C-alpha cells in the first residue's frame, strides 16, 4: 500500500499493518538516535517499546504527515517510563546551592589550564561525544529529557510540554534546574575523569 505522507491513514487491517511499516521504517534511525541521547544503552529497548505502543495506537493517527511527531512523542514517553523504572536514588541536591553555581565562574576561579587564552572553550573542548553522553545520563530523567529535546534536538518547550502532557511552566522549570545540574555535572565529571589535567590535553 503506497502510503504517502499527507494521506489520511485508513484501510483494511492488512493495509494498516503495511501502512504502519512504511511510515515507521524510515524513521527508525532517527528514533534510535534520539533514544540514545535520552536513555543511553537502553535505546534499542526503548525503540522496541515505542514500536509496539505505536502499533497498538495506530488507529489514533489521523494524518500520515503527523507520524514523525506522533512517533517522537510515544518514544519520549517510553524513555521517560524506562527512566522512572530504572532511576537510581538521586544524589541529595541542595537546590539553593545549585542555583548559585556558575560553571563560568568555577572555570575562571579554578583556572584548570593556566596557559590557555580561551579557558572556557578549552574546557568544553575536553569533552568528547562519549563524555557528553555520560554527563547527560547522570542527570535524573526528569531533567535530562527536556534538556536533550530542547537544546540538542531543537524542540520548543511547548512542544515538549505537549509530548509529556505537562504544563509549559513545569517544563520551563525543569529546563532551568536541568541546565544548572548539567553545568555542575560537567565540572564534576571533568574533575573525576581527569579532563582538567594539563597533561591530558
Amino acid at each position, binding site marked *: 500500500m503506497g502510503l504517502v505522507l499527507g494521506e489520511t491513514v485508513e484501510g483494511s487491517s*492488512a493495509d494498516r499493518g503495511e501502512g504502519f511499516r512504511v511510515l515507521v521504517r524510515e524513521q527508525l534511525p532517527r528514533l534510535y538516535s534520539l533514544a540514545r541521547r535520552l536513555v543511553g544503552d537502553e535505546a534499542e529497548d526503548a525503540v522496541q517499546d515505542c514500536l509496539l505502543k505505536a502499533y497498538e495506537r495506530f488507529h489514533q493517527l489521523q494524518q500520515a504527515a503527523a507520524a514523525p511527531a506522533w512517533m517522537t512523542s510515544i518514544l519520549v514517553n517510553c524513555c521517560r517510563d524506562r527512566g522512572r523504572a530504572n532511576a537510581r536514588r538521586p544524589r541529595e541536591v541542595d537546590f539553593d546551592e545549585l*542555583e548559585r553555581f556558575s560553571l563560568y565562574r568555577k572555570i575562571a576561579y579554578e583556572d584548570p589550564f593556566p596557559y590557555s587564552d580561551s579557558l572556557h572553550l578549552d574546557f568544553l573542548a575536553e569533552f568528547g561525544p562519549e563524555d557528553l553522553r555520560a554527563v547527560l545520563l547522570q542527570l535524573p530523567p526528569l531533567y535530562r529529557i527536556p534538556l536533550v529535546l530542547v537544546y540538542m534536538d531543537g524542540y520548543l518547550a511547548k512542544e515538549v510540554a505537549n509530548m509529556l502532557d505537562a504544563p509549559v511552566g513545569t517544563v520551563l522549570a525543569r529546563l532551568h534546574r536541568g541546565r544548572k545540574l548539567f553545568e555542575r555535572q560537567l565540572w564534576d565529571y571533568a574533575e573525576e575523569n581527569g579532563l582538567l589535567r594539563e597533561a591530558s590535553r
Partner: protein
Amino acid sequence: MISCAEATRQLWEYLDATIDVAARDAIEAHLARCRRCCGELEFAKELRRFLASSARDEAPDDVLRRMDQTLEELEP
C-alpha cells in the same frame, strides 16, 4: 539595576526568549554595565552550541535489522 545573581540566573531564559519584556530589559540594562555577566552570557551561548552541535549516534546495522524484524512480526 538587578544584581549579577539575578541576571545570570535568567541568562538561558533570556537567550530562549521565554522571559517577559520587563525581565529582558532589566537583563539588557545589567549587561550593558557588567563585563563579567557579558562573559557569562557568551559562555551560555557556547554551552548551547556545544549541546546543539554534538554528534548523533547512528543506529548500527544489527540494531536496525532487529527493529525491522519487530516491524515485520507485528500482528495485523
